[in-house]
């Protein structure tokens, strides 16, 4: 699980060996990578370059570049209040969903990793949200959040607590969307973490148990370090996914109220699909891309140190 891959000493190749020989491994690797590279080029890199290109233009109603404006789109973004709001909402959203989601998933996975009767049932239940589409789940959550017939407000009423405008109050909306997102992503994180847990050598726990290490001590000194590659993976994925959340927003809030849930991706979607402003949409996409990229690099740089690789 190393990003800092070992470049093996044999790259200091014997000068006698021909270039053809030297590149043999690279050529074999290329064959393995070919399908990916082809598909990526067509469906990701090309559109990405197109996006970057478009971000320097104002586009016409057909979505074609019409007027070169240089960095104007970026400048506009930086001064645009609603983009600031977007960024803030996105960061908050990431902050709400990623740590909480992973901690809950870890908690569930730890429980489900115990060897108990019927544990399979719980594993299925805990991973079930993975099988539920954003569309389907958001519809259900919409119902749960419903201001007049929703389950949540009913429960609050039951306890005599003032109703909450879950999706209508800008102070609550992001939170509510986050809750449903955490729920939705839980299944996947759970499965991944459970897999990681099961891959830890049982002998290590045996040894620790003999030493008399408490559950928490084992958790801290063995489980978490041994799980760190998995955690690292799921954190990276969750971060990226969280930055790209779209479906829930579209169904639950459409970016409102008062743009409080207008995450960047949704803002991009709106600009591109509803307002036909591909130029600004592209500029946002590029900004988002750079943000996520930087964050991921940062994560790899910092996180790597804490991650133990087998």
């Amino acid at each position, binding site marked *: 699980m190393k990003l800092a891959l070992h470049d093996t000493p044999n790259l200091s190749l014997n000068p006698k060996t021909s270039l053809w020989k030297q590149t043999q491994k690279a050529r074999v690797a290329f064959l393995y990578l070919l399908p990916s590279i082809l598909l990526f080029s067509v469906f990701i890199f090309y559109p990405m370059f197109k996006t970057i290109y478009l971000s320097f233009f104002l586009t016409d*109603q057909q979505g074609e570049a019409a007027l070169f404006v240089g960095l104007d789109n970026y400048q506009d973004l930086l001064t645009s209040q609603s983009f600031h709001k977007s960024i803030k909402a996105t960061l908050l959203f990431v902050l709400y969903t990623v740590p909480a989601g992973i901690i809950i998933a870890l908690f569930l996975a730890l429980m489900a990793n115990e060897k108990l009767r019927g544990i399979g049932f719980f594993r299925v239940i805990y991973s079930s949200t993975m099988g539920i589409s954003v569309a389907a789940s958001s519809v259900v959550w*919409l119902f749960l959040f419903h201001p007049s017939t929703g389950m949540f407000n009913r429960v609050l009423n039951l306890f005599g607590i003032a109703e909450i405008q879950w999706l*209508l109050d800008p102070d609550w909306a992001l939170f509510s969307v986050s809750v449903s997102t955490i729920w939705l992503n839980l299944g996947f994180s759970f499965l991944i973490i459970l897999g990681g847990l099961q891959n830890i050598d049982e002998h290590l726990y045996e040894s620790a148990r003999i030493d008399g290490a408490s559950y928490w001590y084992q958790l801290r000194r063995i489980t978490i370090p041994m799980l760190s590659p998995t955690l690292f993976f799921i954190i990276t994925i969750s971060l990226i996914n969280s930055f790209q959340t779209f479906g829930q927003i579209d169904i639950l809030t459409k970016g409102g109220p*008062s743009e409080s849930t207008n995450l960047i991706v949704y803002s991009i979607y709106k600009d591109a699909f509803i307002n036909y402003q591909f130029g600004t949409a592209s500029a946002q996409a590029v900004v988002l891309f750079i943000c996520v990229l930087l964050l991921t690099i940062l994560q790899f740089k910092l996180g790597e140190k804490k991650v133990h690789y087998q």
Partner: protein
Amino acid sequence: SQSKNNENESSNNSSEDNTEESGPVEVSFWHAMSGSGQEAIEDVVNDFNESQDKYIVKPEFQGSYEELLPKFRSVGGTKDAPAIVQTYEIGTKYMIDSGYIEPVQSFIDRDNYDINQLEANILNYYKLDDKLYSMPFNSSTPVLLYNKEAFKEAGLDAENPPKTFNEIKEAAAALTKKNGSNTERFGFSMLTYGWFFEELVATQGGLFVNNDNGRSDQATEATFNSEEGLRVFNLLNDLNNAGHFGNFGTNWDDIRAAFQTGKVAMYMDSSAGVTDTIKNAPFDVGVGFIPYADETERQGVVIGGASLWMSKGISKANQEAAWEFMKYLQTPEAQAKWHVATGYFAINPAAYDEQIVKDKWAESPQLKVTVDQLQATIPSVATQGALISVFPEARQQVVTALENLYQGGNPKEELDKAVEATNKAIEVANKTKK
């Protein structure tokens, strides 16, 4: 083999002329109707297909209005373009400018088709420079829905709903019921949707954009922060501050549920939603005209909903099929069926004389109010509706402004902000226009 089939199907839409020989001409009809609307549209299309044997129209759902448009934009002018496409009213300007569509006026002129049989107030919207670009299809307007039982309970006249802004305020005050900090029933509510704002401005005679709502010339500036617009915002602000306004967000179903469960006593809904609401609400539902400001006269409503457009660049035969279908839709029988099934207006008023409509109206007389309101509309550039290419964005700005307003924002400031943002979008759009 599946994919081969599809290729054949799509090539039917293309401009190859030889398809005429082989049986009936098949054309695609892209629409954005889901739920019961989709059922109704499929019924109507079926009727058409059975009524003759030269053409077969295939209704194809393409997502919401918002989702349909970018898709059409991408296939427009190619062989994958459908013969007929449904577009919401605020996409009109975009469609006209796109160059992908054939104005129906050319067929009207060719066939000397009499469009005067159609509802003038509807045609007005889709006409530009006396040229009809698309065929109106599913048209709606907003109306005021109220809970008659709540009216009685509050000692109000259930047969006489409030007409002006002030009356709304008074009624709302009377209808609001509190229980400690929780409000059990709000007097008034409005979906946080730009459409209702546009209608409330229009009914006062206010314009949304300059250049006669964009109808005499390309609109260059938004004008909805005029006094008419401000009155609407003030009304909502006052109601909200008084605690008489219930905010149920941007979701149609939420506000309907609120009304039907008695959480809201009055709200505005699309005429297309009236039938269902009457059916589902456990109490008597009253329907009234939308309110206007006390300072002005009632001008009426702008038409909403969508119309049908014909693609350009497809084969003559396909265009012919599209045209035949459009004509069929305007027949009183088709319209009557459509109106009864959906609550959308009959484009052809003759439909209202059909028996099924009469039966329906007898059953729920409230439905007639929607038609009355439309027919009572005074034609003007205000009630004709605005034509701007960036209409969707403008609506969004209004939504944001409304949301901010409900959170304690200043009406004037929020409105100005929305106008400013809209202006910017208009400016960009005009700049990039070819």
